[in-house]
């Protein structure tokens, strides 16, 4: 047996790893299975086959594992699909570590195929597409090399370089075919089997807690992951929204952290009204992505009504109830991978109702920490002066803080009095320091205020707005009599949105854009999309308002014309090839017919005698058919070798003349015999 090609084995092992990864990206494969398969792939990549000596024994060991998995499924501790996928991974590992032969290689790659199918059933991640692509390329190359290796005589080298290029081309064509099948094959049922995405780029990093503690560093501000997508009606159309997305508020500060005294409501509802609506409300269809990592609903400031909420779970979507907590916070009752819901918000600048606040909560809007530094009140008074309007006072303080203090994400960690540290020592801090300073300074001057947290920003992608984890922000709500809570932000404007690296943000945006396309074009592709696709192909595009119509034909017309042209070219090429062969066949058929007619008249060609020889013989012997055969022979030779093909109908005419001569010859032969008898 020849030594197997090392490259082929590496490709096979990597293909198997890609297939297993397609399941692992769902995050549902147990860690022990993940570890075992990883070890098996690494050992195999090193060229070691420890199971080669006892392939049957190690295969038998899989039986108790299968039994254990079955029991786990029966006990409800493991999903059936997950168990099947884990077992496929174990089978592939056992085969990877066994002796290499064509049967083993085939089994490894077929187990990989099963794992890919399992991955398709487990998740709709974009990474699945990457794994599928990797598996298709690696497995095809490995199989192709195995096929060539089997045909190469022992001892001869495998022509790897010559094989790889056509295989790559083949894989690309297969991919194109897969896409065509995917787009055009009619969807006969609803997309019920799909499982929603999990946090693809690691665990969720943002989130809301019941308290906000000052201090620490602002690593969250540099996180570019998208946590929220929102579609707004009416559409503002701006590229950057720069709006406040409210999560919750805090009214109590104990010197180190913010909390809320409001008690959570025990009622659970599908629709919650926080305050009366206004005339020009903004409708939002919001999706909280798995990277968000919390149950608190987010909405554009100032939210009025929220409801129609769905929770995304690994097994599908479920309608979800909402629970009202203190501080205007609304939470989903259960934890899921992601959520979607609808919100109506009162736009900024419109007077709002302060919401449902009892007297205790109203009193808390003026509460100060017990050990507050008296210098803070003095400082606030210096800035505000005798101003009595809460909003004007807040704006004065806000401008002063932005002017006198600097924004930084680098802090020294926890300190005993973070506010004093910010105002009098470091004179630098992040949004929570600015918002806390403004809120408490307002309270020292008798103005009601509270801390609000959520996100600031909104980046337009397509017809949606994205909010990133780095957009997490804190600001101040000032209670203005008759107008409700008004937002005042003490943080310098340049530092309100996320502070992530531009390159990192671009990369994540690219990933998010591709992931969005993957989700809409592949995972959620439906019969309706198919119908739209076909309608767009067959009907002219609608006139979109604001879009200038060009005089040139649309792109699809150019594509159709190019395809039609290519089809005509290939048809012409095919027919021209056939046409080149036709005269030869025609001449051959012609000479066969001549020989048949001559043999019916008793003139038979001898062994090796051509029609030319027969014609010459007949002329020599002064045969009565010689005058008829001679021009036929000449014409045949011209057609066969002289580049003068027979014209349509010419052979039939010539054969008819010969037939006539043959019949006359036969009659002449029969007449004397009749007389003799």
């Amino acid at each position: 047996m020849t030594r197997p090609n090392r490259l082929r084995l590496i490709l096979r092992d990597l293909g198997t790893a890609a297939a297993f990864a397609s399941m692992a990206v769902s995050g549902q494969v147990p860690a022990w299975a993940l570890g075992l398969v990883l070890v098996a792939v690494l050992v195999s990549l090193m060229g070691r086959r420890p199971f080669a000596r006892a392939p049957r024994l190690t295969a038998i060991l899989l039986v108790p594992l299968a039994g254990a998995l079955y029991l786990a499924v029966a006990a409800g501790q493991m999903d059936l699909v997950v168990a099947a996928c884990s077992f496929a991974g174990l089978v592939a590992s056992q085969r990877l570590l066994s002796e290499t032969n064509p049967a083993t290689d085939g089994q490894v790659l077929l187990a990989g195929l099963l794992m890919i199918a399992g991955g398709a059933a487990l998740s709709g991640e974009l990474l699945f597409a990457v794994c599928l692509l990797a598996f298709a390329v690696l497995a095809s190359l490995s199989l192709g090399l195995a096929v060539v290796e089997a045909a190469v005589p022992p001892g001869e080298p495998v022509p790897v370089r010559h094989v790889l290029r056509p295989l790559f081309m083949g894989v690309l064509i297969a991919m194109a075919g897969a896409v065509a099948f995917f787009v055009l094959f009619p969807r006969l049922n609803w997309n019920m089997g799909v499982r929603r995405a999990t946090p693809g780029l690691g665990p969720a990093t943002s989130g809301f807690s019941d308290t906000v503690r000052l201090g620490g560093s602002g690593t969250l501000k540099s996180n570019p992951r998208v946590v929220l997508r929102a579609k707004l009606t009416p559409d503002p159309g701006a590229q950057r929204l720069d709006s406040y997305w409210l999560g919750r508020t805090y009214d109590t500060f104990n010197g180190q952290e913010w909390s809320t005294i409001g008690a959570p409501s025990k009622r659970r509802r599908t629709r919650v009204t926080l305050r009366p609506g206004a005339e020009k409300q903004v409708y939002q269809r919001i999706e909280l992505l798995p990277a968000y990592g919390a149950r608190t609903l987010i909405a554009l400031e100032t939210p009025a009504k929220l409801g129609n909420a769905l929770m995304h779970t690994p097994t599908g979507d479920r309608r979800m109830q909402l629970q009202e907590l203190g501080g205007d916070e609304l939470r989903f009752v259960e934890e899921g991978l992601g959520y979607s819901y609808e919100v109506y918000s009162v736009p900024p600048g419109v007077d709002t109702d302060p919401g449902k606040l009892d007297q205790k909560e109203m009193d808390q809007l003026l509460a100060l920490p017990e050990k507050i530094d008296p210098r803070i009140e003095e400082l606030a008074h210096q800035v505000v002066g005798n101003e009595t309007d809460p909003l004007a006072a807040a704006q004065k303080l806000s401008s002063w803080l932005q002017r006198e203090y600097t924004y930084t994400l680098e802090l020294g960690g926890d300190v005993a009095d973070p506010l004093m540290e910010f105002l009098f020592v470091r004179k630098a801090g992040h949004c929570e320091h600015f918002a806390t300073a403004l809120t408490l300074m307002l309270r020292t001057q008798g103005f009601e205020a509270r801390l609000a947290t959520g996100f600031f920003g909104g980046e337009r992608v397509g017809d949606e707005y994205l909010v990133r984890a780095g957009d997490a922000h804190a600001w101040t709500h000032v209670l203005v009599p008759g107008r409700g809570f008004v937002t005042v932000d003490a943080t310098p404007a340049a530092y309100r949105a996320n502070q992530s690296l531009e390159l990192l943000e671009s990369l994540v945006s690219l990933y998010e854009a591709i992931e969005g396309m993957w989700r809409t074009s592949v995972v959620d592709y439906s019969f309706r999309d198919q119908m739209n696709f076909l309608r767009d192909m067959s009907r002219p595009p609608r006139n979109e308002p604001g879009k200038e119509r060009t005089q040139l034909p649309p792109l699809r017309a150019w594509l159709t014309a190019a395809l039609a042209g290519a089809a005509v070219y290939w048809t012409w090429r095919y027919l021209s090839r056939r046409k080149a062969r036709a005269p030869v066949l025609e001449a051959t058929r012609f000479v066969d017919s001549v020989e048949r007619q001559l043999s019916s008249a008793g003139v038979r060609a001898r062994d090796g005698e051509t029609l030319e020889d027969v014609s010459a013989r007949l002329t020599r012997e002064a045969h009565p058919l010689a005058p008829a055969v001679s021009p036929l022979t000449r014409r045949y030779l011209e057609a066969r070798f002289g580049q003068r093909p027979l014209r349509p109908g010419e052979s039939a005419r010539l054969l008819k003349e010969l037939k006539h001569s043959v019949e006359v010859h036969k009659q002449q032969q029969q007449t004397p015999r009749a007389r003799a008898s």
Partner: protein
Amino acid sequence: MSTPPPSLWRRIKAALRPPRTLKVTRMGRTYLVVTFGVGIGALNTGNNLLYLVLGLLLSVIILSGVLSERCIKDLTVRRVGTDGAFAGEPFAFRWGISRRQGHAFALTLSEVDSPLTGEGGVGYLPAGAEHVVRADLTAPRRGPVKLTGVRITTTWPLGLFAKTRVVALEGTLLVYPRRGFACADPGEAAVGHVGEANNPHRMDGTGDIAGLRELSEHEDARRVHWLKSASVGKLLKVEREREERRTYILGVQSGLTGDALEQRCEEVAEQAHRLLEAGHEVGLELPQQRLRPGAGSGQERAILRALAWLGFEEQREEAA
């Protein structure tokens, strides 16, 4: 004795043979089962990713058909033949295969509708160059083997299907008698020295020294000229004017058929081989043919050829 004409079923099969035949390999069968399962899963659940995987699997099936067809079309094959084919043992057989344009991969060649077993392969066939494919074939019995065509099979690109094409190519392969151990004595020599020594290599010959040549295998070391050998550093043998050889006439009696004829042919072939290797001259007496005594490998080849045709004289006339 003559080769039985092909059976009616075989002729019908040959006439009805399609231009290409497709066979699903073992891995291909499993692949089809998996494809079917994924298809059922996709239709049952409506999972779009399963549709995507199904599309990929089906595309690969179609692609396998297209690429394998591109691989085995426009091929030209000729038989280079063999140096000598002995019944019952593998012999090297060669085909010359070429392609005018385009590359071909993983081709396996074998003879179609013949008792020859074995196949040869080529991993990569570039355009415009002839590649000689070598195969170790085995013929079960002695005699002429009529060759009708060459079967070209490819499992390219992924080994899921084996596509086969038969290139019609008439020819005849002459299979020599099986090589074995000859128990019977060749009998008395017709001409030559009669004595204890039965090997002319062990005799000194007579007459003057005609020259010196290198001592070859199986030759008697007693004929070495030690002085000259020592001077040139290799063993040299003395050649005299008259080297003594014996002449044997081997024969196959008429009337032998079946296994008896085969056995006798094999025995004569082996005796001739031994005697010729020992340096004797050997002639052959057959019912319808006589070979004059001669020595050397050419004579052995002539004897083997005559023995291979024995019982197949009609086909020999046809082939001639």
